[in-house]
């Protein structure tokens, strides 16, 4: 019994020892097993990737399009994706706006200009796990071709322009890949001023936007602005063509400064130098003298003004009008103002979505106008300003703050954002301005204002070479330099007048924006020559 006990004790000892060893062994074995399991798992996984990716040819980065083949594939525009297209299998080419992976599915927002739609890649019989992973890793702003089924959704998708449908992706190919790091995020670029500051979210400053204009132009706001700008140009052309105007093209490299002489860019011209045209004025007038009766032109205008303000550019698009009239230069004012009113009406009636889009980021009051346009005389403006407490001389030009104040007063009384100010003092106008027949201190000249800022400056021009010479001498202008200009009136010239508008300024003021650079696609100012 004792032996037994001893034996037992020894056994116990042994057992204890062996227990420890066993434990160790077991642990090791477990480790090994785990390792093996892992390995087999990995192997299996590798196997599955190799074997089980049934959707292998349903996604990928396609070869660079070098026009290898001409597919007859019909691509549907995102704006046309409506509930009527439900359950159809379609192809779409669009940018990846955002992507969000969530387990076995990946949500993409596909964007085409200002329209976007939600797309879904989910593991199923059409898409594999790998495909979902691939979709989730496509960089933002890449261009993709997607084959998908259009499905109606029960809950409206508030964040997209196509709210009633989504796409269930069956194939997805990257056509052009974007770099993973973007210089600016599109969502930040369209965030309204102030909103970002409150929620400490990023906003993009003007210079970053302009430095990366290509990406900035992709935003809904920019898309809307430049669509509207194109509309302004189109309406300008259509209205004037209907009125019997002829579109002309004028040279931009000229030998003499057209307006006064200051603020011109000099360019080298072979062995001499030339200037960049400040306005097509001279050529417009020559066309009138050449019996074109009514002309307009749309083209670049250059001003070497070193002013860094919200409304000055060194190159902008000028919309210029010049027309011969019968008896009174108000015929010209009526033509121009009617053209402007037609533009405003066209924008009001046909570009409401664009205006709303811009308003989301840059809220402003809708543009108001009267038809026919309100015309005030300079003395009336002075009286209004004096009543408001501004001290001004009769022959003094309006300063920019006074212009703004006058704009507010006129808006208050007449509720219009667009008006004409007629009969400027002769002293503040260029030498070729026709003096007033009754009061020699006044002139037959006018400015037009939008939201209190000048957009057009025009006048009846002197069409008599003798009077023109007198006025030039009075202004102490070197007659030799403007000889060609004066000469064009020596062989009979009809009475005429006109004016020029800056396209960018009109768009800026119509939309109530605060910087002309927002409405210039690639703005040029004293500090910016690129892009």
């Amino acid at each position, binding site marked *: 019994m004792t032996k037994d006990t001893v034996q037992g004790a020894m056994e116990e000892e042994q057992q204890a020892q062996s227990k420890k060893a066993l434990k160790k062994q077991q642990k090791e074995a477990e480790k090994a097993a785990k390792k093996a399991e892992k390995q087999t798992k990995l192997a299996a996984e590798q196997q599955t990737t190799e074997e089980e990716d049934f959707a292998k040819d349903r996604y990928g980065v396609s070869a660079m399009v070098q026009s290898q083949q001409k597919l007859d594939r019909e691509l549907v525009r995102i704006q046309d994706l409506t509930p009527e297209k439900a359950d159809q299998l379609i192809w779409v080419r669009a940018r990846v706006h955002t992507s969000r992976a969530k387990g076995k599915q990946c949500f993409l927002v596909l964007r085409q200009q200002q329209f976007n739609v939600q797309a879904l890649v989910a593991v199923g019989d059409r898409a594999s796990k790998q495909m979902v992973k691939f979709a989730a890793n496509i960089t933002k702003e890449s261009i993709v071709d997607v084959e998908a089924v259009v499905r109606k959704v029960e809950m409206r998708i508030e964040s997209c322009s196509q709210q009633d449908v989504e796409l269930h992706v069956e194939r997805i190919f990257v056509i052009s890949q974007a770099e993973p790091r973007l210089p600016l995020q599109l969502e930040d670029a369209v965030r309204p001023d102030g909103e970002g500051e409150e929620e400490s979210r990023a906003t993009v400053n003007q210079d970053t936007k302009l430095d990366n204009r290509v990406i900035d132009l992709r935003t809904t706001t920019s898309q809307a602005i430049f669509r509207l700008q194109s509309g302004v140009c189109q309406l300008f052309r259509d209205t004037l063509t209907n009125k019997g105007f002829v579109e002309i093209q004028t040279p931009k490299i000229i030998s003499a400064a057209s307006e006064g002489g200051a603020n011109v860019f000099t360019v080298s011209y072979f062995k001499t130098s030339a200037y960049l045209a400040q306005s097509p004025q001279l050529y417009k007038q020559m066309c009138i003298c050449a019996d074109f009766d009514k002309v307009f032109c749309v083209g670049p205008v250059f001003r070497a003004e070193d002013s860094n303000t919200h409304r000055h550019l060194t190159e902008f698009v000028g919309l210029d009008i010049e027309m011969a009239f019968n008896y*009174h230069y*108000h015929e010209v004012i009526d033509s121009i103002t009617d053209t402007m009113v037609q533009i*405003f*009406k066209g924008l*009001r009636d046909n570009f409401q979505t664009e205006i709303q889009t811009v308003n989301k980021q840059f809220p402003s009051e*809708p*543009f*108001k*106008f*009267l*038809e*026919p346009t*309100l*015309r*005030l*005389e300079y*003395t*009336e403006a*002075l*009286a*209004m300003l*004096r*009543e*408001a407490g501004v001290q001004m001389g009769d022959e003094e030009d309006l300063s920019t703050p006074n212009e703004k104040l006058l704009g507010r*007063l006129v808006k*208050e*009384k*007449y*509720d*219009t954002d667009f008006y004409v100010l*007629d*009969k400027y003092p002769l002293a503040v106008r260029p030498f070729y301005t026709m003096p007033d027949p*009754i009061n020699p201190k006044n002139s037959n000249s006018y400015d037009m204002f939008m939201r209190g800022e000048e957009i057009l400056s025009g006048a009846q021009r002197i069409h008599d070479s003798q009077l023109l010479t007198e006025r030039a001498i009075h202004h102490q202008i070197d007659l030799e330099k403007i000889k060609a200009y004066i000469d064009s009136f020596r062989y009979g010239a009809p009475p005429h007048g006109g004016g020029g508008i800056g396209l960018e300024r009109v768009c800026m003021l119509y939309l109530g924006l605060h910087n002309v650079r927002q409405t210039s696609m690639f703005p040029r100012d004293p500090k910016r020559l690129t892009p």
Partner: protein
Amino acid sequence: MPMYQVKPVCGGEIKVDLPTCMYKLPNVHEQPGDSCTSEHALQNGEVDPAVRALEARQDEIMRKLYELKAAVEGLAKTVTTPDADLDLTVSSSLSSQSTTTFKGIADLDAVLGKDPGALRDIVINANPAQPPLTLLVLHSLLCQRYRVLSNVHVHSSVSSVPPQLLSCLGPRHADSYARRLFQLGFTLIWKDVPKLQMKFSVQSMCPIEGEANVARFLFKLLALYPSDPAAATMVDNWVDTAFFQLAEGSTKERAAVLRALNSALGRNPWLAGSEFSLADVACYCCVLQSGSASSAPANVQRWIKSCENLGHFGPAKLLLK
């Protein structure tokens, strides 16, 4: 018993810090005399009759002087005033075609303020759904009295306006290209406004709302309201009756107003007595607008005829067709 005055022995006011726990009583030792002496009072508080007589004499003289001043001013007005040439042109144009004359001659400066040296433009915002007939009549009367520059605009809040509304102020004036040649501007803007609105000076005047009120303002440019407050109130009353009961009222109310018009016109040729006034303009337009002209009683019919004979109701009548 009369006694001579003695100066106070102690210095006038002695400040004593009074405890606040007690209620206050007037100072029994205070001398009441100080304030009275300035009014030439005798010691017992009565005013000297001699001083009183002097005062009365002075008042009498001042009154006579004011009367004299008023008389001279009246004379000056009839002989020569800065506006004499203005009145001449007005009277010449009146004599050429006028049928109505107003007794009280209103003055632009008096109603609209000092001449700013530029056109004085009255802006009226009206809803094209409710054309302001009375204002058209008053416009026609104003044109007869002053050189009026009339403009009609359409505001961008209104998409389109029937052509007769665009020409409701008559054909364009031949000189309309030169705004400075006119004394008064009448700018009618068809706009989406809930209530008719008139603006003149943004700085010194708030907008006037409601057709009746604007009509009262414009009428003051034509003729002064009757100086008799009772008569003026009567004119005002008729204007309100026209706008509230004729134009907006029920059939019953309208019938009652027509009866009232009939009895008033039985006594006088015009509503406010022997003179044509704003009451006639307002009531005429509202009778016309409510469509009860044909069914009106005899006196009203006669009065409508005589209104139309004045020749200023043409534009308003045209709009209703």
